[in-house]
C-alpha cells in the first residue's frame, strides 16, 4: 500500500494551498458587535426622544444654516488661516539667531498654550473693560502721547484712529482674534518641528547658490517642512471646527451651536437640537478629512509617497497646475 504522502514527498513542493488558521474569536466578536449595532440602530430610529422630524426641521432653520456657514465654517477657516500664518512666523522667530525674537516667541507660546480656549474666549468677551469708550476706546497713534503733550505744554491728543474695544473683542472679529491667537501658539510648535525636520544641507545648498536665508526658507525649507506640518494641521483644523462651539462663551450669537441651543431652550426639545449639531459637525469633519488627504499628497511630492511612474507624474503635474 503506497501512502499518498510518500508519493508527494518525492515531488518538488509546488503552489501552497494550506488551510488558514481559524479565528473563532472573530466570529464571536462579529456577532456581538452586530447585535449591539442593531440595538443601537433600533434605539436611534424608534426612541421618541430623537424626534427626527424636529432634528431635520432644526437643521433646516435659516438661522442655523447661517450659523453653520458663518459661525462654524467661516470662523474655522479664518481662525486657521491667521493661526497658521502666525504659527509659522512664531516658529521662524523661535529658530532665528536674534535672542529677543526667540524670547518673544517662547513667551507667546507659553502664555497662549496655558490658557484654555473657553477661558480665553470668556475673557475676550469682557476685554472691552480695559479700553472704555469714555476714555476714547482702543486708539492707534503715538505711544505715550499724553506724556509728550504734557512736556510740550500742548493739549489734545495724537491719536489717529480709535475703535470701540467692545466691537473689536466680541462678535465675529473677536471670535477670530481669540481662536487665531490660541491656534498660533499650537501651530508654532508644529511648524517648528516641521522646519527642524528638514535636513540642514538643504539650507546650505540653497545659500550656496546665492539665496538669502529668507528666500531659502520660503522656497526650499518651508515647502519640505509642509510634508511634516500638514497632517497635524489637519487635526488642528478639525479640532478648531469643534472648538467654534466654545464661541458661546464670547458670546458669538451667529454661531451654530449657540443658535441650536437657543431653539432647544425655547421649544424644550434639547436632545434633538444636540443631535442636529452632531450631524453638522460630522458632515463638516468628513469634508475636511478629504481635503487633508489631498494636501498630504500634494506636499509629499518627490518623497516617494507618490508613485514614481512617468504617467503618474503627468497626472500630478495636472494637479499641481490646478492647485496654482
Amino acid at each position, binding site marked *: 500500500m503506497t501512502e499518498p504522502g510518500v508519493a508527494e514527498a518525492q515531488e518538488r513542493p509546488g503552489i501552497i494551498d494550506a488551510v488558514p488558521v481559524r479565528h473563532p474569536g472573530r466570529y464571536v466578536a462579529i456577532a456581538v458587535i452586530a447585535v449591539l449595532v442593531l440595538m443601537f440602530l433600533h434605539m436611534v430610529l424608534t426612541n421618541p426622544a430623537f424626534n427626527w422630524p424636529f432634528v431635520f426641521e432644526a437643521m433646516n432653520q435659516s438661522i442655523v444654516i447661517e450659523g453653520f456657514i458663518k459661525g462654524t465654517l467661516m470662523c474655522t477657516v479664518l481662525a486657521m488661516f491667521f493661526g497658521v500664518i502666525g504659527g509659522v512666523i512664531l516658529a521662524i522667530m523661535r529658530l532665528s539667531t536674534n535672542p529677543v525674537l526667540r524670547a518673544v516667541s517662547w513667551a507667546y507660546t507659553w502664555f497662549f498654550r496655558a490658557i484654555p480656549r473657553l477661558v480665553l474666549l470668556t475673557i475676550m468677551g469682557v476685554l472691552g473693560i480695559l479700553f472704555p469708550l469714555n476714555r476714547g476706546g482702543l486708539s492707534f497713534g503715538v505711544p505715550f502721547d499724553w506724556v509728550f503733550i504734557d512736556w510740550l505744554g500742548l493739549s489734545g491728543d495724537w491719536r489717529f484712529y480709535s475703535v470701540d474695544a467692545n466691537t473689536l473683542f466680541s462678535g465675529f472679529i473677536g471670535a477670530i482674534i481669540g481662536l487665531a491667537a490660541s491656534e498660533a501658539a499650537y501651530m508654532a510648535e508644529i511648524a517648528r518641528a516641521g522646519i527642524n525636520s528638514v*535636513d540642514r*544641507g*538643504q539650507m*546650505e*545648498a*540653497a*545659500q*550656496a*547658490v*546665492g*539665496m*538669502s*536665508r529668507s*528666500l531659502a526658507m520660503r*522656497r*526650499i525649507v518651508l*515647502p*519640505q517642512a509642509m510634508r511634516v506640518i500638514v497632517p497635524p494641521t489637519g487635526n488642528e483644523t478639525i479640532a478648531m471646527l469643534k472648538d467654534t462651539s466654545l464661541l458661546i462663551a464670547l458670546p458669538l450669537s451667529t454661531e451654530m451651536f449657540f443658535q441650536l441651543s437657543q431653539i432647544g431652550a425655547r421649544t424644550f426639545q434639547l436632545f434633538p437640537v444636540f443631535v442636529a449639531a452632531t450631524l453638522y459637525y460630522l458632515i463638516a469633519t468628513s469634508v475636511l478629512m478629504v481635503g487633508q488627504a489631498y494636501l498630504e499628497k500634494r*506636499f509629499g*511630492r*518627490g*518623497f*516617494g509617497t507618490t508613485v*514614481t511612474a*512617468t504617467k503618474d*507624474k503627468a497626472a500630478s503635474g495636472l494637479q499641481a497646475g490646478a492647485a496654482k
Partner: protein
Amino acid sequence: MSETQHNPTHLVRAVNVIKHFGSNEVLKGVDLTVDRGEVVCLLGPSGSGKTTFLRLINQMETLTGGRIWVDDELIGLVERNGKLHVRKDSDIARQRSRIGMVFQRFNLFPHMTALENVTEAPTKVKKIPKAAAQAEARQLLEMVGLAERASYYPAQLSGGQQQRVAIARALAMKPDLMLFDEPTSALDPELVGEVLKVMRDLAAGGTTMIVVTHEMAFAREAADRVVFMDAGVVVEEGPPNDVLLDPQHERTRNFLRRVKDEREAEIAYEEETARALEDLGGA
C-alpha cells in the same frame, strides 16, 4: 602690505587661514593660492581640515583668523577706514552666488524636478526670465548627460545622476569658482566614473576648481596642482606627479602608502573575483 596686493591671475588667495570649533583647532594657518582656470585637488586623511577649508571659502563656516580673497574681494569681511567689518547677509549671498558648491550628499531640493533644481537660483536670485533659464538649464543637463531626466525628481534618480544634477545646478549661476566637497564619496563604486567624467570635462574646459577628493587617479589626471593637508596645515603641494609619485614629506608618504595598500587589497580582491568568474565561464 604685499598681502593685500591683488594679482589678477589669482582667483583665490587664502592667507594664514585659522579655524577653531570651540577648543578644537581644525585649521592652523593655511596658505593657498589658486590661479584662474587652475584645478587644485586637496588630499589628506580625514580630519585634516580640507572640507572645513572648502566650507570657509563659501562661508558655510566663519573664519577664526586669516583672510581669504576671491577675485579681489575679501570673503565675509569688508575693510572701511582701516577697520574690518562683517559683511551684511545680502552681501554674503552675493559673494556665494559667484561660487558654485557641490556637496558630498548632493543636497538636491527633493520637492523639485531636476530642471527646477537647476533653474531655481537663476530665476529667483538672478531674476532671469523663466524661459531663458529653462533653455540654459536644459543645455547644462545635456552637458552632464541627463537631458532626458529633466522632469524627474531627485528620489527617482541614482546617486551618480543626482550628483550630476547638483553640478549642473551649481554651474547654472555661472560661478567664477567651483568647489567640490568629496563629490564621489557617497556614491556606489560603479557610479563614481560618470561623475568624475563630468568633472574632467569641466576641468578641461577651463573652469577653476578646488576639489576635496580621495580619488587619486582623478587627482593625477585632472589636477594642475595637488595640495596635501594634514592636521590643519598644508604639508606639501605641487604638480600631481611630483606629490603623488615622489612625495618629499614623511606624512605624505605615510598617507599615500595607506591609500596604496587599500587599493592593492581592493585590486587583489577584484582579480580573485574576476578569475573565479572566468573559471565559471570555462566550466
